[in-house]
């Protein structure tokens, strides 16, 4: 009977739960879904990470290539993120060029990288005006169940942390690059941005980490990205109903707590990689 009610009146169904301060899957309003992280699974990529937040699964593969630095910034490299939502992850996505959601997510990730100064771009430069690294971060969603942006940020961060770039020197005689695959080093990550997504129902109730259903029924969506020094990196609120300042502050505080949780998870996984070697 509940299943029938859920299909006929999804909004009422959710409202009944929210009145009792809980959600259909049994979570509290401020509770995130269990998050798991797996790194270094793809051997063909320089760095890789797979993150699962509840059912939402995202895999990020990092490939490093060589190119000439941009003419307006000869001592910097490139980081090119791209989010893809293939028809594999949900029946709502059709094959073909990236839709609105994928493009918006890609741009958001690019903004987070730039505004949080995640990686020092000067480090990616090998020889000024001649050679630099371009890091292609391809983020692919394997299962879409809401909260895409948070999961993408965690996957990107984990992939960058465990990425290993081979050493490149420029041969003075031939002026060509020489790559040594045996010597590899990690990238230096300056900041660790972590995002938290919220959904607003009926202009009053704010829930954390919405599933795909909750996202489609919400009246507004909000993503807050903070870094380890409790500073704000980015706030993304694409339209929707307005939010009062105190609600926004409450969301930011929740994002800060989420940051410590994810940081612990990341450190645990990185340490386990080191001990296994």
């Amino acid at each position, binding site marked *: 009977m509940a299943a029938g009610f859920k299909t006929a009146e999804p909004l009422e169904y959710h409202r009944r739960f929210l009145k009792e301060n809980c959600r259909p899957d049994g979570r509290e309003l401020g509770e995130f879904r269990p998050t798991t992280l797996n790194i270094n699974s*793809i051997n063909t990529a320089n760095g890789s990470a797979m993150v699962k937040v509840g059912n939402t699964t995202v895999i990020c593969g990092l490939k490093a290539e060589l190119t000439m630095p941009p003419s307006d910034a000869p001592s910097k490299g490139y980081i090119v993120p791209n989010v893809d939502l293939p028809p*594999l992850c949900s029946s709502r996505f059709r094959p073909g060029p990236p839709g609105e959601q994928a493009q918006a997510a890609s741009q958001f990730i690019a903004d987070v990288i730039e505004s949080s100064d995640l990686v020092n771009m000067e480090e990616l430069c090998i020889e000024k005006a001649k050679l630099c690294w371009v890091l292609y971060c391809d983020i692919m969603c*394997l299962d879409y169940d809401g909260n895409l942006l948070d999961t993408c940020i965690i996957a990107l961060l984990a992939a960058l942390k465990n990425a290993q770039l081979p050493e*490149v020197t420029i041969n003075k005689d031939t002026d060509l690059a020489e790559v*040594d695959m*045996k010597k590899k080093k990690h990238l230096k990550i300056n900041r660790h941005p972590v995002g938290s997504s919220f959904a607003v129902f009926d202009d009053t109730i704010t829930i954390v980490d919405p599933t795909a259903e909750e996202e489609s029924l919400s009246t507004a969506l909000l993503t807050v990205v903070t870094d380890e020094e409790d500073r704000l990196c980015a706030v993304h609120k694409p339209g929707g109903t307005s939010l009062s300042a105190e609600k926004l502050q409450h969301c930011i505080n929740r994002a800060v707590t989420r940051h410590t949780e994810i940081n612990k998870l990341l450190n645990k996984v990185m340490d386990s990689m080191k001990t296994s070697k």
Partner: protein
Amino acid sequence: MPFDTKRIRGPEESQSPLLFLSPDKVPESSSRQGVRGNGDVRPVFARCGLISQAKGSAYLEAGNTKIICSVYGPKETERKDETDMKTGRLVCDFRLAPFSCLKRGAWIQGSEERDLSAALLESLQPGVCLHKYPRSQIEVNVMVLENDGSILAHAITCASMALADGGIEMYDVVLGCALRQNGDSCLVDPSYTEECGNWQAGYGENQGCVTLALLPNLNQVSGLNAEGEMREDSLTDAVRTCMDGCHKLYPVYQQALIRAVKKKAPPPEK
């Protein structure tokens, strides 16, 4: 690379660092000695029911090759003009993730992927009871996360496991197996380096790759893909070896499907 306005732009051109390897520091190519024989297939890890949004899904790992597949449907056909009133349609989409190969692939689907999608469709169609789904279409989406050889063969197996997991009626599971003919010896289930072969050997005789799709219980071949130049007798032997290869791994896939069914519909408590 065609100009892609819908994605974040990077530099116009970039080269893989593998092109610049110092000649004395080329990594050693691995051989099969000691790890497995020429006629041995790689051990396989298969699981069904991983994607919550899909009707059926399967994940397959053979050595380093990682493939995930999801099945959606049956749903109403998109293109009404081609609707066949009596049978359903199978739509296959084969994709290689950009980070799956040694050289980064482009996002836009290339001719290789379209070719593989067509081969996949051809191999799966005989196995599915399409006459039971008139006027509908079943979508099969395959994504290769890491390419370490024999992707078409493993994709066929992964796709049919996903179809079975999704409850689509089939005559039989379709299993795939690949083989690389290298002169007088053949390597079953080749890895990426074995598939590409040595450039020197490429000038020799009898070089090629064979991929076979088999329905094990009916012992019928639903798909055969051979490339390269091979002698007639080595081709027939290769087909027979592939069929054996399919049968060898059949119990593993059976176990994976039984496990998935038990999870979805647990047997009644005694």
